[in-house]
């Protein structure tokens, strides 16, 4: 089992840790700007998603999406081999990486073999997961993010706060300030001006880059095709302008057939941003062929495991790997909406992050994440591939307290003798009904002795008070009254 090392952090970049969830949540909750930015953005995204599915039979489409992903996962080892063979046949060189460090090394070596000093990147969460930029910088290779949101986050020396919209924690004024500070543009609220400025800054860099690095949305096994979904054209530039293109993806992104792509694409864009289609949909099937005028001369595919194959060994947890990274679970999460993405301290925030990160980083690092949910079910309700996220959160809570299968790194880390004894006590009471009744009756009688303060509950709410009599007692009286015909 390979748990990724998170030692390599970009210099100067503002970092967050899942160990600090409570403190980071406290800070975010107390920051009106963060609160307002997320609330407004998430409200908008929820509305757009709902409208975009309009009169579609959403449940049928989600069922189809789930089945496509499950079918791919059922055949995952075979499909990966098929993908490799078909990519190689198309002239795409395939590399396997057991963990993020190995993936970084492979990518660095490809860059070095071309004497690359500058890399331009399309949006890729898996490269965030492995801290590729920091790794390349250490080797003297400059990596520039070309997705507008990623670019802003990079300029601002931050990490993405959302998997689809990396700079969603920033508002227009903050973005204007960052561009002004770092690139010398005018301070403005004119979004078109700012976009055009960023575009022209990036355009030069595309032309000068030695290598382009992108992610992959769907890797099609039957044809060896890499699909890339994007809106800004930066993905197309990244994968076509530099002489070398390196695509990086987790091993779970493979699908069986080309015809699996349209339903997943329809679900992805609507769930993510409420779009019917994105502005760009790239299908990369080979490097530049003889006689062609453009396209990279070399295309590489790096397939990254990084804990995924151990998730795959468990028939419940493997549902985590269905994810198509739309971000709808975070957009609809009442916790994410209030604390924002950075609070989670992980590459993948929100509900999907809380069920994925424990496998990537271990439960010892991430023990507060599976509990950072009221289990309201909104995430599971909107997931386009029907991942049972609430059930998986509960499964990881079980692992945290050592009552699961013990196959998640850090299992048992949250188990304390005190809490375990408390639940044993609860079990004993709730399975001894006569004692339970006596106890609840006494609690009612003693309500005057109940403390008015109940920890953090009463910082925000009044304390619940036992009613003085129990339902058990009321029902007894009620039945006796009925028998005597004295019902009030």
């Amino acid at each position, binding site marked *: 089992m390979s748990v990724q090392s998170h030692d390599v952090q970009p210099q100067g970049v503002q970092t967050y840790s899942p160990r600090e969830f409570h403190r980071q949540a406290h800070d975010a909750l107390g920051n009106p700007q963060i609160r307002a930015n997320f609330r407004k953005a998430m409200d908008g995204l929820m509305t757009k998603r709902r409208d975009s599915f309009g009169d579609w039979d959403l449940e049928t489409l989600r069922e189809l999406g789930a089945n496509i992903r499950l079918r791919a996962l059922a055949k995952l080892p075979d499909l990966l081999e098929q993908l490799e063979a078909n990519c190689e046949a198309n002239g795409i060189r395939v590399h396997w990486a057991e963990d993020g460090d190995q993936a970084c090394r492979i990518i660095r070596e490809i860059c070095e073999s071309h004497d690359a000093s500058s890399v331009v990147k399309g949006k890729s969460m898996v490269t965030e997961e492995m801290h590729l930029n920091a790794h390349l910088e250490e080797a003297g290779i400059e990596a520039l993010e070309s997705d507008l949101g990623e670019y802003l986050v990079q300029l601002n020396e931050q990490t993405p706060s959302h998997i689809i919209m990396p700079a969603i924690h920033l508002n227009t004024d903050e973005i204007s300030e960052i561009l002004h500070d770092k690139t010398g543009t005018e301070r403005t609220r004119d979004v078109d001006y700012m976009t055009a400025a960023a575009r022209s800054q990036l355009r030069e860099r595309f032309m000068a880059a030695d290598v382009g690095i992108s992610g992959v949305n769907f890797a099609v096994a039957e044809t060896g095709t890499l699909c890339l979904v994007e809106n800004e054209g930066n993905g197309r530039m990244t994968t076509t302008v530099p002489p070398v293109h390196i695509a990086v993806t987790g091993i779970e992104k493979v699908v069986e057939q080309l015809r699996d792509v349209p339903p997943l694409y329809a679900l992805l864009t609507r769930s993510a941003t409420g779009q019917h289609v994105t502005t760009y949909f790239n299908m990369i099937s080979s490097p530049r062929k003889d006689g062609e005028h453009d396209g990279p001369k070399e295309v590489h595919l790096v397939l990254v495991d990084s804990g995924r194959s151990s998730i795959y060994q468990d028939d419940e947890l493997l549902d985590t790997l269905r994810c198509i990274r739309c971000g709808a679970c975070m957009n609809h999460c009442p916790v994410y909406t209030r604390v924002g993405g950075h609070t989670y301290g992980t590459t993948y925030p929100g509900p999907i992050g809380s069920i994925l990160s424990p496998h990537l980083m271990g439960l010892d690092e991430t023990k507060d994440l599976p509990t950072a*949910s009221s289990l*309201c079910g909104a995430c599971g309700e909107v997931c386009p591939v029907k991942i049972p996220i609430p059930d998986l959160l509960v499964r990881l809570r079980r692992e945290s307290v050592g009552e699961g299968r013990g196959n998640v790194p850090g299992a048992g880390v949250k188990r304390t003798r005190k809490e375990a004894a408390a639940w044993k006590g*609860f079990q004993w009471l709730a399975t001894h009904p006569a004692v339970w009744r006596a106890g*609840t009756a006494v609690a009612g009688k003693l309500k005057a002795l109940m403390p008015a303060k109940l920890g953090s509950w009463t910082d925000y709410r009044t304390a619940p008070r*036992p009613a003085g009599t129990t339902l*058990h*007692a*009321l029902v007894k009286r009620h039945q006796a009254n009925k028998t005597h015909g004295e019902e009030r």
Partner: protein
Amino acid sequence: MTPVKLYPPKPEKVYFFGTCLVDLLYPEAGLDAIRLLEREGIEVLFPEDQTCCGQPAYTSGYQQEARAVAAAQLDLFPEPWPIVVPSGSCGGMMRTHYPQLFAGSDLEERANEVAGRIHELTEFLVHVCHLKLEDRGAPEKVAMHTSCSARREMGLAETGPALLAQLGKVELVEQARGAECCGFGGTFAVRHPEVSAAMVEDKTAAIEEAGAQRFVTSDCGCLMNIGGRFAHQKTPVEGEHIASYLWRRTS
């Protein structure tokens, strides 16, 4: 279990599972639910040995403890009568999670059988009793908070509002983000108190802004949370379990 829920004809008798929160904190709500059922000519059986559905242990990850508590409840309903629960949360636990808890064990069949008979109160009143209500109360603006478990786990977003809609003098007001969680989430409110507080603050603000004089809910966890917040901020918006509200206005 079939995903399509089939409702039985109105039975002669039902079992009533009161839930531990109702037992301890809101017993009148439980009794009012029993009265509503009895008024429909149904005999209500209250197994005395009922305690808790086991959900707090279950959602905290204490699986063995949850299973032991759940197993004790499985013995309480020997006859084939429907089991009515005045909570979407406990109802969802018994209907959805009991089969998962006992899958592959000796109790699997019994757990599935019991789960198939679980009905949340408003669901039972609407779909089995086809309840007709005559409002005797004064005009009032009311907000309904449907719990997340009732709404999503049990698919019952409509039954509470459908009952309130029968009350002629009650105006059901629409709150912003009505489907959003109030922030209770059982032990979530204890483990993440500040996040939970931010959620309930927004919930009480939305109910107040909707102009509600009162809110009703079918889950006592939400009632304790939202009601506790209103009381803490000294806002004169009262909360009530829907069973009590319906009984009070129609008796």
